[in-house]
């Protein structure tokens, strides 16, 4: 009988201690040791979330039930500005360039080089010079026709440096091919690299030359100093 009573007391004691443990555990939560407030990445459904960590007023919309399946096939791509349409020459090549892996573009280099020379032939004719006497001249970056068109054909991606100035080509600082800002004059830079020769001014409209190194327009009244998303609101009517 005494044994039985002791056993009951023990059970009660254990139960009491367990309750204490349980209460303690709840207390921990209330004290903020585990979850101070609901967030969108705590892995549980709380606040006014519609599902775990999504929906409601604070979190990203839930994507449960939204279909993202299927296979998507490339139709267009762009690295640097104006490459495909300036250098590809024909419509068939332009279409092909957009759906060819960057690593499979060896066949485009000779096409790009031929197009570059064809542009020079046009102005040889305009200037009354035999076309064989007017060729592309190694440009201000030291790139001859093969290396220049290789850069454009094989490696048509935008180089983006995470440390330091990002620019397509800043003539003031000399920094080149580290990004492309909204303000960079991509067309003048491209024209200078195509027609500017070693000095960058080979065909600049002076000394009887045609103006081929600048298209004569700048960014006008565009504002490139805006905070995110950095682009201006749409032009309205």
């Amino acid at each position, binding site marked *: 009988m005494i044994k039985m009573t002791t056993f009951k007391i023990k059970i009660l004691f254990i139960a009491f201690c367990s309750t204490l443990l349980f209460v303690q555990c709840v207390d921990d939560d209330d004290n903020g040791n585990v979850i101070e407030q609901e967030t969108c990445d705590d892995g549980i459904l709380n606040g006014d979330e519609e599902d775990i960590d999504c929906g409601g007023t604070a979190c990203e919309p839930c*994507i449960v039930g939204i279909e*993202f399946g299927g296979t998507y096939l490339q139709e267009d791509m*762009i690295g640097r500005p104006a490459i*495909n349409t300036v250098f590809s020459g024909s419509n068939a090549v332009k*279409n092909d360039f957009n759906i060819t892996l*960057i*690593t499979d573009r060896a066949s485009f280099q000779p096409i790009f080089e031929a197009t570059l020379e064809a542009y020079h032939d*046009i102005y040889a004719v305009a200037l009354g010079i035999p076309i064989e006497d007017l060729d592309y001249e190694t440009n201000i970056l030291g790139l001859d026709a093969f290396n220049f068109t290789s850069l454009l054909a094989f490696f048509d991606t935008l180089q983006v440096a995470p440390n330091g100035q990002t620019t397509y080509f800043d003539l003031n600082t000399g920094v080149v091919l580290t990004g492309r800002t909204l303000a960079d004059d991509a067309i003048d830079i491209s024209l200078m690299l195509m027609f500017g020769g070693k000095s960058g001014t080979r065909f600049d409209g002076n000394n009887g030359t045609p103006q081929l190194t600048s298209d004569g327009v700048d960014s006008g009244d565009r504002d490139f100093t805006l905070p995110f998303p950095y682009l201006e609101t749409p032009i309205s009517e």
Partner: protein
Amino acid sequence: MKKTKLFIAVGGMVLLGFSIFLVSADHIDAPNVSGTTTDLADLFAFEGDNPNNTVFIATLQGILTPGIVTENAIFDEDVLIEFNIDNTGDFIEDLVIQAIKRGDTMYFFGPASPSQTGLSSEVLTFANRNSVKISTVDNLEISNNDGMTFFAGPRRDAFYMDLNRFNDVITGAVAPDGFLPPGEASDFFENLNTLAIVIEIPNSMLGTPPAHVGGELGISGLPPAYNVWISAKRKQ
């Protein structure tokens, strides 16, 4: 009746004009994508207002005239826009950030290693995901999460060039003197809009950049740089 004829005549000239456009960054760059919802216009990439971040901007469906054309321009739910980042120097994407529209929202997945590289993709639903409500002409919507900032919607085209004169110049005979001087030259894109997707991302999420490709072609002294491109892929 006269008005109708005038409209047809002007419309015909505009169509003729569009058909002979030869360049505008990547706007309407090739017949197979010209005027479609996969037609990319420009890629910009630059240091953000926070110097530890890089901003990637894709513009697409360029040459949106102000007003009804811009207001009606929409992203296509069947088109996946991918920002590709090669951080090893082999010109194969190591990280992608995907953007795709559902309803009134643009969803973003990544940056993450793609399940497959190349011309064919699937949406990386296992990856880090974010979203932003698509902005309208009048309402700017921006979202911030995971250190990244997102935007999708119509914006003024930042690209500028004298497109019409360019088309004359490359035929030579029409423009023997080349481009026009400032003042006479005209920026074709001055009053046009595009659709834009903007992502600002901490550089720490992009990995270590590889040696600059310019070094392979003899341009020395260039800093390590990611190779970045955008692709537009259509659901099959």
